């Protein structure tokens, strides 16, 4: 099934379920039963089910469905929790310290989840456009290798061309550039300005360079561009991995606070049992 078809089908199912849930909730609200317990338990069990995706990934040997299927469930069920949460709190801002903490944590989880979903849908295509597959863990090694090559070129310029400008420019601008991945936010925002500045700086040196220097400068430019490409890869892949640093810890926090909230809700419910 094509991606669009699958998405449309799942969205339709989500809308239907959401509509039915809304109608059921409205009807249930007309009774004298406190619907918050019903929506609360549904929400809690749903959150637990969502958190189990992480466990599913680790227990891949278990025949409990494809991970991609779990991921789809995670995405759409996570979207559904927005409605469920709003129904649970009655579309009003929570009051109370603990309730506010719970609401903020849930908001953080949902927001990070939606951000992550957006990133996982947009960034891979951007990465693919830029060229070869690059393994994230090997990028620092590749950058280090490029840095060594550039150092060799600079040494060559001093030895063979008696150049002073190239080493100066390297010491001033290129050394820090090649030291480690750079320009994170520029790459996220798809802004090429740092690269252009560096390349134009190198191009400026061409004016006063000898033929050998020009040769070396040309190769240095290529290294700048290559390194810039690695930086781009690094930035985007870091984003793809980094959003989980927010989403996963907050999810566990959410579970803990939610259980505590459940305990308090029963402890102080005030109903006749």
């Amino acid at each position, binding site marked *: 099934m094509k991606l669009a078809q699958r998405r449309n089908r799942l969205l339709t199912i989500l809308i239907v379920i959401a509509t039915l849930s809304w109608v059921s909730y409205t009807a249930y609200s007309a009774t004298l039963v406190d619907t918050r317990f019903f929506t609360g338990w549904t929400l809690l069990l749903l959150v637990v089910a969502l958190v189990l995706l992480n466990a599913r990934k680790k227990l891949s040997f278990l025949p409990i469905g494809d991970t991609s299927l779990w991921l789809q469930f995670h995405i759409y069920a996570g979207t559904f929790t927005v409605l469920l949460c709003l129904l649970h709190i009655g579309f009003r801002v929570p*009051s109370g310290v603990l309730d506010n903490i719970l609401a903020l944590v849930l908001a953080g989880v949902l927001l990070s989840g939606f951000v992550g979903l957006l990133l996982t849908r947009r960034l891979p295509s951007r990465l693919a456009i830029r060229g070869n597959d690059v393994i994230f863990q090997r990028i620092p090694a590749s950058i280090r290798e490029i840095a060594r090559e550039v150092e060799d070129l600079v040494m060559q310029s001093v030895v063979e061309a008696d150049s002073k400008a190239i080493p100066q420019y390297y010491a001033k601008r290129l050394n820090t550039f090649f030291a480690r991945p750079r320009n994170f936010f520029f790459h996220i925002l798809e802004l090429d300005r740092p690269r252009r500045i560096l390349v134009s700086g190198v191009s400026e040196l061409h004016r006063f360079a000898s033929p050998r220097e020009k040769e070396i400068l040309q190769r240095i430019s290529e290294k700048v561009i290559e390194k810039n490409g690695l930086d781009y890869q690094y930035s985007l892949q870091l984003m793809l991995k980094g959003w989980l640093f927010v989403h996963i810890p907050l999810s566990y926090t959410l579970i803990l606070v939610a259980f505590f909230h459940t305990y308090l809700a029963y402890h*102080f419910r005030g109903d006749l049992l």
Partner: protein
Amino acid sequence: MNEEPRKQETDKERYERPVQNWICGWAEEGRRCHLGPSPKGRCTVTNECAPRKQGDGWVCTRWPNFGGECEQGPLPDGACCRPIACCQPVRSLRSKRTMVTRWTILLTLAVLLAGYGGFWRKPFVSAGDLSMQHSTAVGECSGCHVLFANDAQDEHPDTPVFDDSMNIRCVACHDMGSNSSEPHGLARGELSVISQRSRAKAGESSTPMMLSLAALMPGGTNGHEGSLACATCHKEHRGREAEPAEFADLKCQTCHSNQFASFSGDHPDFSQYPYYRRTRLIFDHARHKTTHYSATKKAFVCSDCHMLDRAGQQMALQSFESACLDCHGFEETRAVQKIYHHGQQILTKEVEFFVLPRLDLRTLRRKNVDIGRWPATAKSRRLTPFMELFLTADPSVAPVLDRLKGKKLSNLRSASDAELEDVRRLAWAIKELLGVFANGDVAPLGGRLEAVAGASRKQDQLLALSGQAQPGLFAEAIETWFLAADDSDPDYDISAFEDDLRTFRAQLCRADSAACRASSDSKKSTTDKLGGRGVTTGVWTRGTNRASIVYQTSGHGDDFLKGWLDLALQLQATDSQAQDVNREAIRQSGEALLVELGGVKAKPGKAKGAGQCLKCHSIESVAGTPSGVINWTAFRPEIATRGFSAFAHAPHLQLGDQKACAVCHILEDAEASKAASSKVLESFVHIQANTFKGNFSPMTKDTCGACHNPKTAGGACVTCHNYHIGTLVPTMLWTATSPEALEDNAPDGR
């Protein structure tokens, strides 16, 4: 320019193992080792290979990915010739994420434990601010939550697990009656009766879809028998501006048999609202408007008689003096009080309390029947109803009265000896009664009231019934009628009984000289405040031309008349409060008093009676009182119980005075109806208040619906209906600082 990153090796043997927690520290240099750190993050690799013995020599086993066999080969002792410096292993990204997660969990647990276990526990677990009403009245969490009350009680043996007894805390301040946890505060079974009646009256209506769905849900219909916690409807901790009593319409209907979508839609129409009973005071609005007011050319204005109560909810009747006195006024004279009707004096307002009947003294003397002194001024042909009642209360006299009923005491020539003996006993009984009344410093009217009215009467009730008659009045009457010397009567003999009376009279004068004087000297009624309640009574006089003691009423609201009319109404019921009495005689005395005092019409169109009280004050049946009660007051909003309907007049009267009243209270066409008017008055012949013909047409739903629709004033259930009904005590406005203070100040029984 080529922006493509350089191609990295994708050899499967150099798989990066992303789930590993530690990465070789040389990886960033591009010189990572072939094994990687241990699971605990230690660098374990010291050489590039682990040489293998092969024959006498050693073979390099360096992995092809890392260069394959080296040129030098292993050392002769089997050690690798290419040592690797130890690295500082680095956590993988995944491992870092795991660490962040663990620390986050620990931090969360720490915050929860610190919050719940620390001294800031209450604000930490609080679900939010209380409403403004409760935040001022309830100081601590323990004011509502039983569980918090146990915080300081380490040895409390029965700590509840849940806060399910919170109802106790609610009703400690909010007195909702004895059935506070039942729907509407009604006893079980009572609601079923109301529901059946409601179902029978209501027309067809369509159940909203949501309610139909709700009925399918678990717990969808509470039914009439289930108890309800206060928290079912009243939600707190929603902030200071929230209204705890806010409630959705559909929730109201979830229990109801008759369900509908909205008020302006298919809410059942009104049947008799608001006229479910006749008025307590007999008043014909139509006749007053078209006949009496038009005759005096006075405008018939509602607010002349009706005023808003303090709460702005109900309309109360103004006082008699404000509303009625202009026409139904009294003129006080020394001896007579009159009522005017059409400008003509029609009645006197004095009551003969005690009279001496005319006796055939000649016959009695001739037959040697000794009755002692009997004054010539004794002219009455009958005893007063009061005397008959008091004498009947005496078991020894009741048969005498019964035998003498209908006999003409002024002509005893043909009376038998037995009848003469009865007359003798009656005469002495009358004297004895007077003597008892003269002994009134012991108790009002000498304590005889208890025998008639019952021992359970309160002091102020006895005082009203006595009319605050001074004992000296009766003592003076005794002296005048029986003790004055009459030299012309040779048989006159002051008996020992009369000696005692004279002695008593003398003693009375020494104790209180005021008691010696007739109370007729004073025109003003006396008021004796007993228990904080004033008793308004009139003036006592002695008849000048006849041996009688007369009570002159104090005007409208005279407590003597009221007390005796109430008593008379009870006495005419079959069971009397007096014991060992002639019940039929008692009943007849009660009837006679009603006629004498209340103006009950003996015949149609013929009004009698000193007070004419019952001309305006209706009698109606009340549960538990077979005889009924007299309505001395009109409807009193301040003591009314809350019903299911809630209507506040104040907001509606903004529309303007007379017009506003007439919008809802439509006076039936009085022009057409003397006949209709008479039917209104006929409604008061019987004592069933719910069977009547009123002056006003019942309201219709359309009248209210003109404004109470979604676009204007709204039609929420709680706008017009109360959930809590009955007699509710207003909430106490004080702050409870501890559970003990709450319990100390709670209403009795809680």
